[in-house]
């Protein structure tokens, strides 16, 4: 019996290794050619094009090529990459991942939630079938990527306009910043102590003035408990901080993906 239990746990220990999925590479920029499919000059062109597109339209299109998916379904892998890289802006969810696996001869266009209206599964599927696939089949990867990116840009054009105020931090949403509950609580507690002290001194003054309406004196003279207001102020500051460090190249903003897009092979 003991042996059975022991072997069961040994089996459990093995599990994570047997189901380990393909690793997600680090994002290097708009074009991540880990599969060595794109020639350097075209790669530079594409990166410049995508950077400019993000500046004018705010939509982030990122290309990733990998040598192999290592057995993962392409849909699985692409959504994991899209989430890990946080393509697109938070709230706008305007990211697109164009994933190509060289050895599997598979590709997928993963579309962020905010773009599903313009770049439907259907449109993405047609871009793969009619624009990219024929070129890939002919062995013209450079042409396939260039044409595919142009088609994606055309399809999404006008869906969102870049707003200059929040270059990469996304729109201002009160309470959206990641203020930890503990910090919030400490701030609240701080105000609480402050109020207690103020109320006390006010009460003493009231006493000196020979008891006016005490309740009005302690609470009415001050703004109500300021949790919401000051909480909002805090998270804006956090937002601005995180927005200011947008360096060169591509930086993800936390766009959401819901599994939209299309896959294909060649």
């Amino acid at each position, binding site marked *: 019996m003991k042996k059975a239990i022991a072997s069961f746990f040994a089996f459990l220990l093995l599990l994570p290794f047997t189901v380990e999925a393909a690793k997600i590479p680090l994002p290097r920029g708009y074009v991540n050619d880990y599969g060595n499919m794109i020639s350097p000059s075209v790669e530079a062109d594409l990166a410049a094009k995508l950077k400019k597109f993000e500046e004018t339209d705010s939509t982030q299109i990122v290309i990733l090529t990998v040598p192999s998916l290592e057995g993962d379904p392409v*849909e699985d892998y692409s959504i994991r990459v899209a989430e890990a890289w946080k393509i697109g802006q938070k709230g706008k969810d305007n990211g697109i991942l164009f994933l190509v696996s060289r050895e599997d001869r598979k590709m997928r266009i993963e579309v962020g939630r905010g773009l599903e209206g313009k770049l439907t599964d259907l449109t993405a599927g047609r871009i793969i079938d009619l624009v990219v696939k024929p070129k890939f089949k002919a062995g013209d990867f450079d042409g396939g990527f260039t044409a595919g990116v142009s088609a994606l840009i055309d399809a999404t054009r006008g869906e969102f306009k870049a707003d200059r105020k929040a270059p990469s931090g996304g729109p201002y949403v009160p309470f959206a910043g990641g203020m930890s509950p503990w910090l919030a609580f400490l701030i609240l507690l701080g105000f609480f102590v402050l109020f207690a002290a103020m109320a006390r001194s006010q009460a003493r003054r009231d006493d000196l003035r020979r008891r006016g309406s005490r309740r009005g004196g302690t609470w009415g003279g001050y703004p109500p408990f300021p949790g919401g207001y000051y909480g909002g102020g805090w998270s804006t500051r956090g937002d601005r901080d995180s927005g200011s460090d947008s360096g060169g190249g591509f930086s993800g903003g936390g766009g959401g993906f819901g599994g939209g897009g299309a896959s294909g092979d060649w």
Partner: protein
Amino acid sequence: MGKQLRYLGLGMVLLMLSGCGYNVMQQNEEAVKAAWGDVEATYQRRNDLIPNLVETVKAYAKFEQDTLTQVTEARAKVGTVQMSKDALDDPKKFEEFQAAQNSMSSALSRLLVVVEKYPELKANQNFMDLQHQLEGTENRINVARTRYNKAVETFNASIRIFPNNLTNQFLLHLKAKEPFKAAPGAEKAPQVKF
């Protein structure tokens, strides 16, 4: 002095509320409900595609009445099994919902196998478009289900750990939610591939 004590007491209550997981559990439950909303929406999306698909297939594959009827019936059945967000902790209801959706999935995949016999249908642009949409929808269902299961996992864990379990027992009375289980014979949601 008495006033000071009262402030102190109020502060203690606040401290207890944030330390005992009251808010965390509520948030986790809301997350489960939100994730469920996505699951429902994606299933609904699939259901909306089906009449179109059936019509298109009908035009080409007249001899597959049985398969088509099965799809239509499964769709009708799915329509009758509704799951509200508040019934997610009811294993029986959840199982019913899952069974209905699974029978829908298998009817659909049977239909798509049948379609293989009709080359003109497969080459039809309308059908190819539908395929893309259906494929996308199945993928969304997959994503939504995975996220829902993750949210359920978080929630179920949060009502069981100490001291949340005490708070839950005395104040909230939340019950564990049901996750999706893999359909018998399939490790993952049916993939529609062409």
